[in-house]
């Protein structure tokens, strides 16, 4: 690994100042499970590594049924799924948190880092998009801004963060009554692999639990960025829960997939998988919404 300097600030202001001091040659370090591999392999370069795990706001994991979840960008996956109130309120977030990498990786890797790494295959990103997540970003001079999760990634490994900006936390709205969410991916093994395709969905049902009020669907590994399949989700709004409605949403999601052929899968396979996974995740999300 090429030499770099290291700093471990304790406040957002110091972290942002450190990041700004080196522009695109500074990198924020949370779990390091992507960054250190990339620095070692020469895929990213850094003169300064800013370890943000000492900043309190990046370590917070606070949930209330009234305000929702604020998840600090440096909270490792294991603390997400070990948190009982978060696990019961957002099973659709626990799905990716508990299948990213190994137990060793889940002890370090963070949902915020998954977003900032901005891989098209990032498992937590479709889940965050489906759950209506918003990214809280800090910049220099105390400036902050909020970006909806579906607008965060701009290309493979690229996102809206400008040099000197820091992802502080992700906010999820409180789960609506009769709502449920799910993320599933396809990999050719049981564990430890990168999604050939992945789908995250969330649904809100009416009080009879027989009709969709609204739905959000997002896709992984089928485009240069995670995809918010808005038409597919919107197609369900107001419809009775039925195989036909789910099939229609799956078709629309497949139409939003723009995959490539590569060593993990073909365009045809990935498009097909989006259909299968959209159906399966909707069915699971509906079960969860019904408390089944």
């Amino acid at each position, binding site marked *: 690994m*090429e030499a770099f300097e290291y700093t471990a600030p304790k406040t957002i202001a110091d972290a942002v100042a450190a990041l700004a001091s080196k522009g695109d040659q500074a990198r924020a370090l949370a779990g390091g499970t992507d960054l250190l*591999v990339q620095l070692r392999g020469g895929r990213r370069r850094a003169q300064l590594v800013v370890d943000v795990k000492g900043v309190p706001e990046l370590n917070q994991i606070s949930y209330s049924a009234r305000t929702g979840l604020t998840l600090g960008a440096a909270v490792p996956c294991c603390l997400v799924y070990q948190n009982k109130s978060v696990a019961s309120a957002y099973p659709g977030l626990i799905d990716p948190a508990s299948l990213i*990498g190994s*137990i060793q990786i889940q002890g370090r890797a963070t949902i915020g880092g998954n977003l900032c790494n901005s891989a098209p295959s990032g498992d937590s990103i479709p889940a965050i998009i489906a759950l209506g997540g918003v990214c809280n970003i800090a910049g220099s001079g105390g400036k902050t801004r909020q970006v909806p999760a579906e607008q965060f990634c701009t290309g493979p490994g690229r996102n809206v963060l400008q040099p000197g900006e820091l992802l502080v936390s992700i906010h999820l709205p409180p789960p609506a009554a009769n709502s449920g969410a799910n993320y599933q991916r396809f990999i050719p093994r049981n564990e*430890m692999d990168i999604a050939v395709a992945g789908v995250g969905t969330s649904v809100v049902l009416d009080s009879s639990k027989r009709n969709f009020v609204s739905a959000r669907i997002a896709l992984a590994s089928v485009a240069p960025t995670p995809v918010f399949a808005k038409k597919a989700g919107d197609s369900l709004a107001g419809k009775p829960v039925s195989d036909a409605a789910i099939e229609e949403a799956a078709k629309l999601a497949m139409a939003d997939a723009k995959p490539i052929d590569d060593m993990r899968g073909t365009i045809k396979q990935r498009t097909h998988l989006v259909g299968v996974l959209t159906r399966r995740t909707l069915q699971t999300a509906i079960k969860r919404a019904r408390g089944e």
Partner: protein
Amino acid sequence: MPGLVHVQTTINGNEVNFLCEPRQSLLECLRDVLGMTGTKEGCNDGNCGACTVLLDGRIVTSCLVLGVEAQGRQITTIEGLATPQGLHPLQQAFLEQAALQCGICTPGFIMASKALLDKEPEADEGRIRHWLAGNLCRCTGYDKIVRAVLQAEDMIKAKK
């Protein structure tokens, strides 16, 4: 060129001070700076689990931790398991079940298994296999390793 950084940490219960470059991984610091070569380097990118150590009680791949991140933390390595009274039950069970051939993956498997048994002393085979998915072994085919972890559970229970 950035200078060396002084790191003060606790390894296997002992306070340890060392100097390292910020770019050096905890794995490099353990092996090359401190001469603690029990922790093995496999893939060096977080896939194989050979370099697994406990960091504040949680298993991590030490190739994906910077040495400087060890400041003020508690680290447990394979060297910390045996006592003057003898091997840790996991070490004994791995020997008795012949759960190793080349041995490079073994310290990582034992550290990962220790973390599991500390929390879930009665983990079943399925749970053990899932927990150890981040540790690769190219020799044994895993069955002997799983049997050794199950035997270690019995040994630990019998001791209590």
